[in-house]
Each structure stands twice: as structure tokens, then as C-alpha cells.
């Protein structure tokens, strides 16, 4: 599964990065986020497009598994 690391970026940047990455990997991808706003916002974006989102804790960060 393609991985996207949005660490160090603040909103709306992680959503824009996810949007671009999903164009290249429409089947889904894993997105690493390092703050709550990004976790929430990337999840909202993927859900609005009809994807399923699973949130995994990864230390201080989160990994969002976005799939069809």
C-alpha cells in the first residue's frame, strides 16, 4: 500500500497532499499524520469521497488506512 507522510505540515496541506496522492492511488493509501486536526480533516476528506478510514495509533502520530 502506498504511504504518504504528512508530518510537519498543518491544515489544509495534509488534505491537499492526500487529494493528490489518491489521484495516483485511487484504490487507497496509508497516510501518516502528526496532529489531531490533520487526522480529523484527512479522515473527513476520504470519508466524503466514499472511502473507509481506519485509524491506527503510531506512537505520538496516527496512521490512517484509507481503502475502498
Amino acid at each position: 500500500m502506498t504511504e504518504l507522510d504528512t508530518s510537519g505540515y498543518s491544515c489544509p496541506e495534509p488534505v491537499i497532499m492526500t487529494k493528490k496522492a489518491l489521484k495516483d492511488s485511487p484504490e487507497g493509501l496509508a497516510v501518516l499524520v502528526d496532529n489531531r486536526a490533520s487526522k480529523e480533516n484527512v479522515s473527513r476528506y476520504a470519508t466524503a469521497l466514499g472511502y473507509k478510514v481506519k485509524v491506527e495509533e503510531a506512537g505520538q502520530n496516527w496512521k490512517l488506512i484509507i481503502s475502498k
Partner: protein
Amino acid sequence: MEEIRLTSLVRSSGCNAKLPPGDLHKALDNLEQVRSRSLIEGFESSDDALVYDIGDKALIETVDFFPPMVDDPEIFGEIAAANAISDIYAMGGEPRIAMSLMCFPSCLDISIMRRIMIGAIRKAGEAGVVIAGGHTLSDREPKFGLAVTGFAKKDRIWSNHGVRPGDVAVLTKRLGVGLLMTAHKAGETDAKEAIEQMRTLNKKAWEAADGLDIHAATDVTGFSLMGHSYEAASASGVTLLIRSEDLRFLPGAEEAARFGFVPEGRYTNEDYLADKVFVPESCPLYFRDMLFSPETSGGLLLFMSPDDAGIYMKRLDTAFVIGEAVRFQEMHVKVV
């Protein structure tokens, strides 16, 4: 030469750049300082400005500045001025003089600073305000705003702690600016109506209250509709019932929320307010986003009798009722 986009230089923008309310209370609550008998409203009351007794009338003073949320320097100057001046209107006063606060990166062409000032002077002029001085710093991120002074008759000062049970709450601008400007920063919308609304002075909203008995007032900015409603209701010891179906949002705000273009301040606002306001479980996520998202240069939130509200809304067609105050019941704000 390609012009640098102002918004590309900043991490957060507009009133979304405010420190979270919880942190602010930790830093500022119960600080000891010299008392002044002439100070009518000061630090303690979380009001929009200070009010100082100068004899036959009251002096009102406020300061507000923030990073740009638009790329056009003149429009940024206009929005920053309209936003700063709004705090004087929110206290019932007439703004008169101002000083500018400017933080400016050395990498930017100095003509951009001039254009920010042109916009600010134009908007201040519309309010009858003269910008008479200021201070400039070199900074990595641009920021701009005004310290504004105004005056009011002593019996016409609107604080945020005079809400009475039975009062109607009237809002004078639509909500959703923070969401739309986040989507705008992502290139998803031109946010035309949000920008137009931000650069609109609250002058007409203030004038429309002439002769009416305004019991309390504030303006809706970075702490969101919920945050500013809570401040007014808790300071007044009442509960404000906000009717969700009566709220008006700018077009596109709901879509921005659904697609995750949600400003960071929305989350810190809800953290601070979680145990202070009631939002029903059934309220969809996007609607919670709209309730808790920061606004920039938002409308006045006025509390008055139902009769006065009827007159007020005939005078100002952008105004709408969002709910009413009742005697305190468990929480200071309830969304119904």
C-alpha cells in the same frame, strides 16, 4: 516578477491564529495589577475592549492583528481594519482613531506594505477612523492590524454580561468564514462571499441599533459562534438556546466541512467548550464543525427584547435571530 502569495508565508491566518482560549486563561487569569477606579471594563470580563470613564463619556480601546487569509494586500488591509474596528462597535461605541501594527518579512517587496496600508486606510475612512501612527517589525510571517480607540455615551455601552432571560439573540453576518478560507487556502474555492463579508464593517449593524435597548453584545470571531455565545451567556448567568435551523451559513461552508477543510482552531475551541456547552448527539459532524470553527471579522451578536429585535431586523436585512436566552439550566449554551 511573480508576486509572492501572502497566504503562502503563514501557517495559520485570520482569527484562526488566536491562541486557544484554554491556554489564554491559564496565562492571564488572576494576574495582580494596579486597580483603576475609572476602568469600567477591564481584563477580567473577557469583553471585546476596555472601557474607561473619562467624565462625560467613556473611552473604548481595543487591539487586534493577524496573519493574512487573502493574497491581495489591499483586501487584507481592509479585512484587518474592519475586524479590529468591529470590537469598538461590539461595545456600542463609535470608532475614531487608530494606530497600526505591522509585522513584515524582509523578503517581500516594500510596495506590498504600502498596499496593505492603502486598504486599511480606505476601510478605516469608511468607519470615520483616522490611522494616526503605528509600529512596524521585521518578522518571518506578515501580520497586520490596528489598535482602535472609540467613544460612547456612558449609558450606551454594550458589555457582554447584560443578557437577560427572554432576550432574543440576533447575529448580523452569516457563519462559515473560517471553513471557507481553509478551503480557499487549499485552492478549492474563490470564497468570494466570505471575503466580501469579512471586509464589510459592522458599522451598519451598530447604527441599526440606534434608539433600541441593547442588553448585551459581542462579535463572533476566533472563538467561534459557540465560544462567543458561551462568553456572553456565562458572564450574564443565563442559558442561550441556539436554534440550529435558524443559523445561516455562507454557501459552500457545509461542503468545506464535509471535505475536511476545517481550521485547526475548531478543535481547540471544542476542547475548551466541551463541558460548557451542549450539542445534541444527533448533530452531524459537519454541523459541529460549522458551530465550532473560528470566524474572522464576523458579525455582531446582539441581545435585546423580542420587540426591539423585530425593529432591528427591519432596519438591517442581513440580521437574523439565532435563539433566545432563558434562565440558567445546567449549561450556558444549548443547541436545540
